């Protein structure tokens, strides 16, 4: 037997093209975000997803529109895009404008969209698994076969909160898929000293199905998450998947990453970039031509430019908007 240099494409051509296109969409959107942040147009924190794109897209593609995604970790923009939130709404939210997904109330870390079933309020790291349990509980109570997928970083798995969510999901045998995006880093703290061999082993004491996959391979993530979702939908309960990704970006824009080994970092960029690898794979398997990919990139660049224009033109919220939307129902005794 000889080792193949070329990896097969195990999905149909349309799906493969969509995978590449969606990963490029995340990448190009984020490159633009970085520029706009650098120019001072986007305020606050900016955490990018470089290296996680395959994991985000594979996971998003495995889900139905009706399935919930409760996001976690710090690589969020890619997940918003993978769940189908339109680029202009995300960009306008990053800008803090009224046409943003959250009307400027949330920002980069809190893009949320109930119509697209995105529970995206994620900034206490390692909390999102608990609402995911509740989302699945309500779907079960309502008698649907919808599933809740929830993501968390390697850092977040150290929170007790993550583990109690596992306990409840197992106890109630709920349709939850826990996806751990292990990129080896929690800001500057390496994951390697955490005791499990694979972080998906955290599902073992609960007798959950677990799997650890190469998260930089979009097809691997797609397959693993699809399998887990299918089990969940069929009433076979929760699963834990470790998606082994690499972080090819600073923790957030402005992080100098002095803690990383340069040679190793270069090697990862060379070997583990999910987009570059998949691009080559599709070319080698004649799924796409260079020209078609160039067209794809050009189209996405237009989309992203439009998103930026949309955000720039959207008004800043009036100061009164800070007081809106605190309570849903009227305060009987107050005002009026």
């Amino acid at each position: 037997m000889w080792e193949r240099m070329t990896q097969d494409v195990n999905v149909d051509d349309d799906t493969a093209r969509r995978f590449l296109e969606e990963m490029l969409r995340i990448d190009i959107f984020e490159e633009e975000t970085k520029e706009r942040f650098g120019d001072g147009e986007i305020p606050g924190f900016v955490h990018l997803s470089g290296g996680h794109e395959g994991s985000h897209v594979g996971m998003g593609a495995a889900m139905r529109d009706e399935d919930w995604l409760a996001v976690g970790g710090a690589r969020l923009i890619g997940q918003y895009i993978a769940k189908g939130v339109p680029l202009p709404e995300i960009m306008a939210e990053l800008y803090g404008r009224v046409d943003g997904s959250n009307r400027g109330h949330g920002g980069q870390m809190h893009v949320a969209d109930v119509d697209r079933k995105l529970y995206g309020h994620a900034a206490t790291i390692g909390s999102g698994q608990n609402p995911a349990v509740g989302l699945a509980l309500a779907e079960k109570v309502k008698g649907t076969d919808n599933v809740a997928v929830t993501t968390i970083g390697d850092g977040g798995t150290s929170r007790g909160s993550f583990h109690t969510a596992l306990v409840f999901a197992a106890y109630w045998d709920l349709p939850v898929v826990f996806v751990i995006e292990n990129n080896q880093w929690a800001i500057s703290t390496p994951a390697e000293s955490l005791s499990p061999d694979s972080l998906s082993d955290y599902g073992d004491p609960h007798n959950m199905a677990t799997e650890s996959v190469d998260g930089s391979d979009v097809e691997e993530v797609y397959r693993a998450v699809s399998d887990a979702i299918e089990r969940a939908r069929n009433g076979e309960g929760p699963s834990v998947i470790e998606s082994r990704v690499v972080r090819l970006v600073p923790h957030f824009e402005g992080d100098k990453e002095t803690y990383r080994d340069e040679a190793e970092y270069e090697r990862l960029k060379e070997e583990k970039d999910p987009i570059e690898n998949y691009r080559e794979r599709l070319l080698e398997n004649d799924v796409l031509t260079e020209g078609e990919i160039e067209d794809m990139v050009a189209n996405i660049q237009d989309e992203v430019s439009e998103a930026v224009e949309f955000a720039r033109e959207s008004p800043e919220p009036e100061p009164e908007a800070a007081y809106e939307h605190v309570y849903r129902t009227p305060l009987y005794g107050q005002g009026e």
Partner: protein
Amino acid sequence: MSQQVDVQAEQTEQTIRESLNQALYEELERDDSVILYGEDVAEYGGLYKISEGLYEEFGDDRVFDTPLAETTLGGSAVGAALAGARPIVEIMYADFLPIAGDHLINYAAKMYFNYGDETSVPMVVRSMYGTGDGHGLHHGQSPEAWFMNVPGLKIVMPSTPKDYKGLLKSAIRDDDPVLFLENKMRYGESGPVPEEEYTIPLCETDIKRRGDDATVVAIGGMVYEALEAAERLSDRGVECEVVDPRTVTPLDTDPILESVEKTNILVTAQEAPTFGGFGSEVAAQVIDDAFFYLDAPVKRVGAPFTPIPFAESLEEAYVPTAEDIETAVIDAIET
């Protein structure tokens, strides 16, 4: 003024425990999306038997037990409410609310604000507080001050059997997250409750006793102490107005201000330590908006700034009582 109940309606005498159980029963029956869960709430009926019989009546799809993890009780309620259920979660003791605090403070309270559309999380977290049973450090603290400066949360702290029932029903129907605090020392307290179905709106301050000489703003279990103090003071010719906000946040301040404008004296009463507490906020509101009506400095009655002690002698000294309120009113009047 605030009660939407026909005063002529038939009333029965019943306890707070019975009122709560009825409210849960009626709302579970009324709305299929209401679910009740927590530690030992199903077959056991809750540590204080508030949910007794509900599991038998509604089955384990609607009323069920959970493992011991308040973080996930809080967080799962947020998710369940978002996905269309109306969860009522029992946190056995309010001392454990901080364990669920991440989900109450960082998520539940901010969900409507962050989504920015009509999305909200209609959930109720019931929890028990109250001192005087020797339960010590971790089983009786009054938690309202820990949560009352969180915009987006509603905190309800009723006093009478009638209020407990009407307010719990409203809390369950309310579209915002509600922290519903029950005084475990008062579950056996009884009083008149309408026989007909009724609700009492959240965020409406109630006047429990009329009087012209002093305003006592009391919450939760302290309303009973305030009423007792008012009776004793009445014997001495001092008529207190006992004001019961019932909802701590957001606070319906107008009736408090109106009362102080009439009596010119303000005393507040709470079970929690006085410092940084509910009474301090009431005092500040009155100072802001009715300062020139005050004839005397505001007196705040509450626990000392110390943990709840265990020894009977210490606990007795710790818990604020009717005598403390009586003394505070006299002090204010005599200033």
